[in-house]
């Protein structure tokens, strides 16, 4: 257990960096200023250590063996599930372990949707959704002849117009699906309020928590969500891995989508009974090593303190918002100006410099930002943008990283202003 904090209790990103080996390397021969943690996080040493320990001391097929090593494998896997469940404050028995957040959201749309959507039923999403929480709803509403409706965004800032919620509730949606934190706008959705509005008309709330769980304290019960999905690789876990929490009664009713070993009760040649609980949705050999790795990542984030991560990231974001207009005067910031309404990221566009050119020029200084649609193309279309640039931060983001960003921004501006 490291010492990650300053004397005043705030997070010290320089101390934090010691746990992330990539910062000791110089990819492409330059010090790395990684400002793309919203795409995927950097991995702490201890995540690989935990994986390695599990694989080299307790590796067997969990749930399937009648010998000590298999029991150790099962214990390690289930302890990891419990650790991850505790991280988001839900019972382990309600946390389905899947391959990704994308898989989790697809499971909700297809399994819940297929059983519950009827012709003319409304599913409500925001215009800012990540493709992973949009296309599955497009698909299932089309298949069930249901309607997909949208909580609109402001044409200029992109901010989600939550005040439209009241009148949209007249559509009596059966499902509201949205991101906890928008991966483009950075805005935190007022979930408690949305859940209340949803439940008042009998709608369920499906939350895509990918951009929230690593960047701020998240207690799923406090959000009011009925489904909540998140992704391991944004938290410092391996690439594979996603969690789906579902309300116990919903989980009990849902049919599995994927079938195979480990999710059955009994199988005959022509039919099969499925088991109960989370296991019903976890066909095949579980990703035990991925779970153990993610549990170690959760430990670390809790050592940092998620309130402290949030506070540190708010400081970084606040600086980006404050200094950006001077560095790039035509920058159009997407989402709320107020950093306290955000978590972890800020995206912007510029008519002078296309995001892709900006990313390229910044890359020459080792500054890694993301350019493009960030898997939210419809939002960009609403804003009439062919792309945006996104800066995202993490516990290991330092002021030096931002210094390099701004030096690069000024340089890019010089090139394009000619």
């Amino acid at each position, binding site marked *: 257990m490291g010492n990650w904090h300053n004397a005043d209790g705030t997070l010290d990103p320089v101390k934090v960096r010691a746990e992330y080996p990539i910062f000791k390397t110089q990819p492409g021969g330059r010090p790395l200023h990684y400002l793309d943690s919203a795409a995927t996080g950097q991995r702490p040493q201890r995540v690989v250590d935990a994986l390695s320990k599990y694989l080299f001391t307790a590796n067997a097929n969990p749930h399937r063996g009648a010998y000590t090593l298999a029991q150790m494998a099962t214990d390690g896997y289930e302890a990891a599930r419990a650790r991850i469940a505790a991280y988001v404050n839900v019972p382990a028995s309600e946390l389905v372990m899947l391959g990704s957040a994308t898989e989790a959201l697809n499971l909700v749309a297809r399994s819940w949707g297929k059983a519950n959507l009827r012709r003319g039923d409304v599913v409500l999403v925001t215009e800012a959704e990540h493709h992973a929480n949009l296309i599955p709803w497009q698909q299932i509403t089309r298949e069930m002849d249901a309607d997909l409706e949208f909580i609109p965004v402001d044409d200029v800032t992109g901010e989600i117009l939550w005040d439209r919620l009241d009148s949209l509730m007249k559509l009596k949606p059966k499902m509201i699906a949205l991101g906890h934190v928008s991966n483009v706008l950075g805005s935190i959705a007022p979930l408690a309020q949305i859940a209340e509005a949803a439940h008042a008309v009998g709608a369920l709330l499906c939350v895509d928590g990918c951009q929230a769980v690593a960047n701020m304290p998240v207690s799923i019960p406090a959000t009011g969500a009925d489904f909540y999905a998140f992704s391991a690789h944004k938290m410092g876990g391996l690439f594979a891995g996603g969690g789906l929490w579902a309300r116990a009664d919903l989980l009990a009713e849902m049919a599995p989508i994927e079938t195979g070993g480990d999710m059955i009760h009994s199988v005959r040649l022509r039919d099969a009974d499925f088991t109960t609980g989370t296991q019903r949705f976890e066909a095949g050999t579980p990703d035990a090593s991925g779970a153990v790795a993610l549990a170690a990542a959760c430990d670390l984030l809790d050592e940092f303190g998620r309130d402290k991560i949030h506070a540190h990231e708010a400081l970084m974001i606040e600086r980006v918002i404050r200094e950006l207009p001077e560095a790039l005067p035509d920058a159009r910031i997407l989402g709320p100006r107020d950093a306290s309404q955000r978590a972890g990221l800020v995206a912007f566009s510029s008519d002078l410099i*296309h*995001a*892709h*050119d900006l990313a*390229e*020029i910044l890359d*020459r200084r080792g500054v890694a930002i993301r*350019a*493009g*649609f960030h898997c939210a*193309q419809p939002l*960009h279309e609403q804003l009439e*943008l*062919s*792309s945006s640039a996104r800066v995202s931060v993490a516990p290991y983001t330092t002021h030096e990283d931002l210094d390099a960003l701004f030096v690069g921004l000024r340089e890019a501006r010089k*090139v*394009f202003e*000619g």
Partner: protein
Amino acid sequence: MGGMDDLYREQILEHHRRPHNQAPLAAPSVSLEGRNPNCGDVINLQLQLDDAGVITDVAFSGRGCAISQAGTSLITDELRGKRIDEILALGSPFVMELLGVEVGPTRIHCALLGLETAQKAIASLSSK
């Protein structure tokens, strides 16, 4: 920083700021939208061909990064007077030469957007 100065040379930036061949054609033989899904570059390309399969006129409009727009501007300048088969024979080295710089893997799709869209437009014509 030599690499940067190469990719963002004045010639490229000039084509980006004031792309050529922007006046839409009245009755193009074919028009096609080309997209680069990863970074949102988009162009609308119009070609005019004569009966011998020679490009007589060309126009495009588009939005996107400097490389995609400058690349398309540069390539459209080259299309006029070329035959279909000549255009289909062109490849990435030709575009690199036009740009005067070797474009790396992260941007190659941007650089080739114009040429590839022209080739797809021509292919769609002959398959009609």
